């Protein structure tokens, strides 16, 4: 109780926004400590100078003064004290950073695309959204992000998270919202005329409400889906279902000419159970085929060649848009023999750290 009181007091004193994610609570403790030490030290040094200025002010013009020199002990102290203080900041900060950049197991994934000047969100098993991202409270959400034009940066002050969104690369971050609410998304990397208007919103819903929201959108779009299934080949079909969209991307781009989905090896590796498979490369290294690797292989097929395959795959950089690539990755992820229907990954994407 008393801790909550002081937490709130410090937070308001420093004008920090609400602590709406699990990370915010964690990082703010360091924030308070750092701010306290900095203010005390700066005022201390400034006032020490002013105090000396008056205490030792000139009493006789051009007087001689004693020779004052530091001892070895003094020098050791002025090196070690700041070193220890700064080390403690960096140590705690780095520990929290590792925590904040390592997504736990079982996250809900959302694909984020930044472009001038809006945010686009795609849920793997649900609808696409522009500018507004709906997420459930109390569940870790992982954002897999890329940009279509220049570098953007995804920032939600209340969550204390920020991640650059770089064209040609996938970056990821995660958060777990504590309670329902609405929070502003800012772009923090200068991206042109309306950089300041590249603003979005995270709408955090209580978990059951979130499920209802998703269901409602799905039902709302059911006619589309039925229409689509009857008119195979229409460009607009399955817009709201990332998985089906991904399958469609694969057939349009001609992926199935070389990659199978039934487990047999063809010109390229099969996609069945590809996601999270430990794969040996030509270079001798072993990698885990996660989202990042899958995307990279579409864009730069020869950078990490799987052992035993010829260099025949073309690069899809520029031929496939970021949402298409994201949909395709989701489709590949869904091709798992043991849980074909389940979109959630069985294994953790990255092993969670001990905490």
């Amino acid at each position, binding site marked *: 109780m008393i801790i909550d009181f002081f937490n709130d007091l410090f937070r308001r004193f420093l004008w920090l926004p609400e602590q709406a994610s699990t990370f915010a609570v964690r990082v703010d403790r360091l924030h308070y400590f750092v701010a306290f030490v900095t203010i005390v030290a700066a005022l201390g040094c400034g006032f020490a100078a002013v105090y000396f200025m008056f205490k030792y002010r000139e009493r006789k013009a051009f007087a001689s003064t004693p020779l004052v020199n530091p001892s070895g002990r003094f020098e050791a102290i002025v090196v070690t004290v700041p070193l220890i203080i700064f080390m403690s900041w960096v140590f705690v900060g780095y520990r929290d950073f590792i925590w904040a950049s390592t997504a736990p197991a079982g996250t809900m994934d959302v694909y984020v695309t930044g472009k001038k000047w809006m945010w686009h969100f795609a849920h793997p098993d649900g609808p696409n959204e522009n500018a507004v991202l709906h997420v459930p409270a109390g569940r870790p959400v992982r954002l897999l992000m890329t940009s279509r034009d220049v570098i953007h940066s995804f920032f939600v002050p209340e969550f204390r998270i920020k991640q650059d969104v770089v064209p040609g690369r996938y970056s990821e971050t995660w958060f777990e919202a504590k309670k329902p609410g609405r929070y502003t998304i800012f772009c923090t990397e200068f991206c042109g005329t309306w950089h300041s208007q590249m603003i979005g919103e995270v709408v955090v819903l209580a978990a059951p409400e979130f499920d209802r929201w998703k269901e409602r959108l799905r039902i709302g779009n059911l006619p589309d889906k039925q229409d689509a299934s009857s008119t195979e080949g229409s460009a607009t079909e399955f817009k709201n279902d990332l998985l089906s969209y991904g399958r469609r991307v694969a057939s349009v781009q001609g992926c199935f000419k070389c990659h199978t989905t039934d487990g047999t090896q063809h010109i390229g590796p099969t996609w069945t159970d590809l996601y999270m498979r430990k794969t040996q490369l030509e270079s001798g290294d072993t990698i885990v085929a996660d989202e990042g690797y899958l995307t990279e292989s579409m864009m*730069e097929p*020869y*950078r990490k*060649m799987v052992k035993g395959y010829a*260099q025949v795959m073309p*690069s899809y*950089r520029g031929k496939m848009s970021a949402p298409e690539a994201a949909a395709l990755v989701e489709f590949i992820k869904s091709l798992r023999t043991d849980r074909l229907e389940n979109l959630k990954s069985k294994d953790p994407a990255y092993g969670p750290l001990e905490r």
Partner: protein
Amino acid sequence: MSSSEAAHSAHNPYLAHHFDTMEQQDHAARLGMWLFLATEVLLFGALFLGYTVYRWMYPQTYQECANLLSIPMGATNTVVLITSSFTAAWAYHSIKVNQIKKGLALLAITILFACAFLVIKYFEYKHKFDVGELPGKWYSYEGLQAPGANLFFAVYFLATGLHGLHVVIGMTVLSIIGYRTIKGRYHSGNYVGVELGVLYWHLVDLVWIFLFPLLYLI
């Protein structure tokens, strides 16, 4: 320096007013030149970093692109430059021991070698322009269509182009030294200027000795 010493050496016409002795002036000139060479190395350093990063991103493409370069031409150029570096050093030595005519001849040979280097480079460039092995958006070579090839040639043209510019500057510097030697400015009593110019020429040579294996061989 005490003032009497300064007055003593002030008779030397090559001593600038703000230095006390010739040794001090030569020391300053040499140190300045070495620092300048350090900045040159760092200028190329940015390009070498770009090369490293893209080689790491596109290892196979870089290998294939290196095969597109003509090793005989590159190797000839390497030999030409190393020889010219040798003649430049020899010219410096000759001027230092007052063999002015020999020094001038060797400088001329050095400049001729530099011209030969540029001519060979011209034919290499011409071939690349003809087949479309060009940087960035200009890359149109049919024989190798792989991501990263345009970047290899971006690095190739930027690095060799910048090096070519240095060759031209080096030739100019050597020509000025030759002209001043004819005018009688450089001889056994005053040769630091020659030394610095030749030092610059060695840098030009050295950069190529790094560029040749990185671009052509590996």
